[in-house]
């Protein structure tokens, strides 16, 4: 796809083309909106991280010596709500996806720039509701808002929190809509579907889940608000409702939501592994279609969250089998990434370190998911720390590491500056070690029977809890470091060339950072994706 490295020009780019706060708050430029998302998403991640720290601090000792049980309930609820709805779901699509999809397909912008900006404001409005809940006393239902506790017994601000997430959902719907229309309608001449980067395929599948699933959780939370506020019976048997119905509706969205988090990460990993192996991804078509298969099958497995909730055993059997099936497309990706690296020219730059971490941690997360989708095994493990460890391996080990890999990979493109290679590698190592130290002991705790969501526990569980809390400190350090050296790089980092990693893809053909219109002239694609024979060999960044 690339014929020559693009010259670095001293021209206006999207960052300095206009100045002033107004030029940012009213922008239609997808790149600027992506940067605005990056800032607020990072802020919500930091806030969610504060709550995670409080949880691990409390659990360092068996006694409840830091907070009362109801305070602890609020702390883990806010951690979950902030991390799931305000960080993990928008993280890659709203930042990297927003920035890169038009660049990758050779377009000037997304199909609906104003809707893109609207999605940011809707996200902010949802965030304001959630911060209001936080400042006025919190909510104690867990991020899952299970009925009848949330409708009849909780003393927290359930209605405000539900509305915050309801509003926030529309932000994701608009982003997904924008991506689907853009990918269908605005591809550069010659850019056929099977020449698209795998990052774009992953975002296409993610967008379909966003559009098909998010309205369901929005409606579900709205029904919850109606039942709590107006006593209209949907879920409470006292009003003629069915509490398991809430779980069906909630998980119809919230299980696929895991794929909203992980699919974009998989897209990032496909790009990073290919670039730093200087090889076309092994089985491009399989990886592309496995994204679509995950999106489709991901919608058919939600009942594995209801195995012990009173769901029919026959429905449980079907959901169990379907949950095994969804492991297949995930495994296809992992094997294909490994095969891509085989006999490749592997370079262990920072994004690649994160990508390798992703493969290992996501594999552990995925395989422990198989444990949980087995009906009999799940009876033993439901609501234990095994579940907590499993989904953190997927969401943090998978989604977060993918996000960090992507952020480090495209940072030179987004801001035109390189960051410290030494510190970034130290950070990647700290995140990997800290993460495993935090969450691996939780598998053992769960298997031994420690339930989740309790702040007081028997003393025999303390050793593993102390290990976990110590790991959280290392993980926190590993995550604070990028905040420092990436911010530092904005002013002091070396100027990045247009293609510092020797990558293929249209986004690397324009300047770093790109001009407001993305390309001087609309690119014409004449070759397949990932054609490394066209990348000059000397364009390989070091240090």
């Amino acid at each position, binding site marked *: 796809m690339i014929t020559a490295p693009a010259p670095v020009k001293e021209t206006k780019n999207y960052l300095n083309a206009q100045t002033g706060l107004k030029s940012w708050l009213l922008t239609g430029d997808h790149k600027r909106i992506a940067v605005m998302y990056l800032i607020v998403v990072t802020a919500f991640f930091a806030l969610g991280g504060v709550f995670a720290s409080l949880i691990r601090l409390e659990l360092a000792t068996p006694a409840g010596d830091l907070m009362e049980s109801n305070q602890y309930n609020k702390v883990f609820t806010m951690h979950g709500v902030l991390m799931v709805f305000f960080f993990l779901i928008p993280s890659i699509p709203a930042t990297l996806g927003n920035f890169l999809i038009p660049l990758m397909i050779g377009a000037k912008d997304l199909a609906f720039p104003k809707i893109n900006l609207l999605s940011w404001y809707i996200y902010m409005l949802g965030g304001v509701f959630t911060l209001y809940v936080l400042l006025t006393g919190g909510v104690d239902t867990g991020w899952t808002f299970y009925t009848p506790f949330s409708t009849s017994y909780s003393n927290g601000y359930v209605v405000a929190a539900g509305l915050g997430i309801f509003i926030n959902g529309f932000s994701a719907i608009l982003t997904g809509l924008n991506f689907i229309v853009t990918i269908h309608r*605005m*591809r550069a001449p010659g850019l056929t579907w099977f020449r698209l980067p795998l990052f774009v395929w992953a975002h296409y599948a993610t967008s379909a889940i966003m559009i098909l699933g998010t309205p369901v959780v929005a409606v579900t939370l709205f029904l919850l608000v109606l039942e709590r506020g107006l006593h209209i019976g949907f879920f409470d048997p006292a009003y003629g409702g069915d509490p398991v119905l809430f779980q*069906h*509706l909630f998980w119809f969205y919230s299980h696929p939501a895991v794929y909203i988090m992980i699919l974009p990460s998989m897209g990032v990993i496909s790009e990073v592994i290919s670039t730093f192996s200087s090889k076309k991804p092994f089985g491009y078509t399989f990886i592309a279609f496995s994204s679509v298969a995950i999106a489709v099958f991901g919608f058919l497995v939600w*009942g594995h969250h209801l195995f012990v909730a009173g769901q*029919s055993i026959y429905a449980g059997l*079907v959901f169990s089998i379907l949950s095994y099936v969804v492991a297949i497309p995930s495994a296809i990706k992992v094997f294909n990434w490994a095969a891509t690296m085989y006999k490749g020219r592997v370079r262990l730059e920072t994004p690649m370190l994160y990508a390798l971490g992703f493969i290992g941690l996501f594999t552990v997360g995925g395989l422990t998911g198989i444990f949980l989708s087995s009906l009999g095994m799940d009876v033993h493990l439901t609501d234990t720390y095994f579940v907590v460890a499993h989904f953190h391996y997927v969401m943090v080990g998978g989604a977060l590491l993918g996000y960090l890999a992507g952020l480090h990979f495209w940072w030179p493109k987004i801001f035109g500056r390189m960051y410290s290679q030494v510190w970034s590698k130290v950070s990647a190592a700290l995140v990997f070690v800290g993460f495993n130290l935090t969450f691996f002991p939780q598998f053992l705790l769960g298997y031994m029977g420690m339930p989740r969501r309790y702040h007081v526990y028997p003393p025999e569980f303390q050793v593993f809890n102390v290990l976990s809390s110590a790991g959280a400190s290392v993980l926190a350090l590993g995550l604070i470091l990028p905040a420092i050296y990436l911010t530092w790089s904005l002013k002091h980092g070396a100027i990045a060339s247009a293609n510092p990693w020797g990558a293929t893809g249209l986004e690397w053909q324009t300047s770093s950072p790109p001009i407001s219109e993305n390309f001087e002239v609309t690119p014409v694609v004449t070759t397949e994706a990932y054609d490394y024979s066209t990348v000059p060999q000397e364009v390989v960044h070091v240090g």
Partner: protein
Amino acid sequence: MSDHNEQHHIVPIRVYIAVFLTLIAMTWVTAYVSTVDLGRLNIFVALSIAIFKASLVILFFMHVKYGTKLTKMIVLAGLYWLLLLLFIAMADLWTRGWMGVPGR
């Protein structure tokens, strides 16, 4: 990929007015039917009217009737997903009683 290969269909205003009046009339029918006890048919009739009204909105007000095949396919995919949710969730309800609860 071209933006110019479809025609923008201009809908006569009388069509909008006819659809609007039909929606108002069906709202009146819904309210009236709710006062008549049809037994097990109550929910069936109410939902049928609601589906009919929603179809009118989707076809005419949202222009799906005049949209491209891709637009229609996306609308159908959304409806299919809704049916999937309803069918599988109801399948749980239908089969819950098949196996007795020990001790009950």
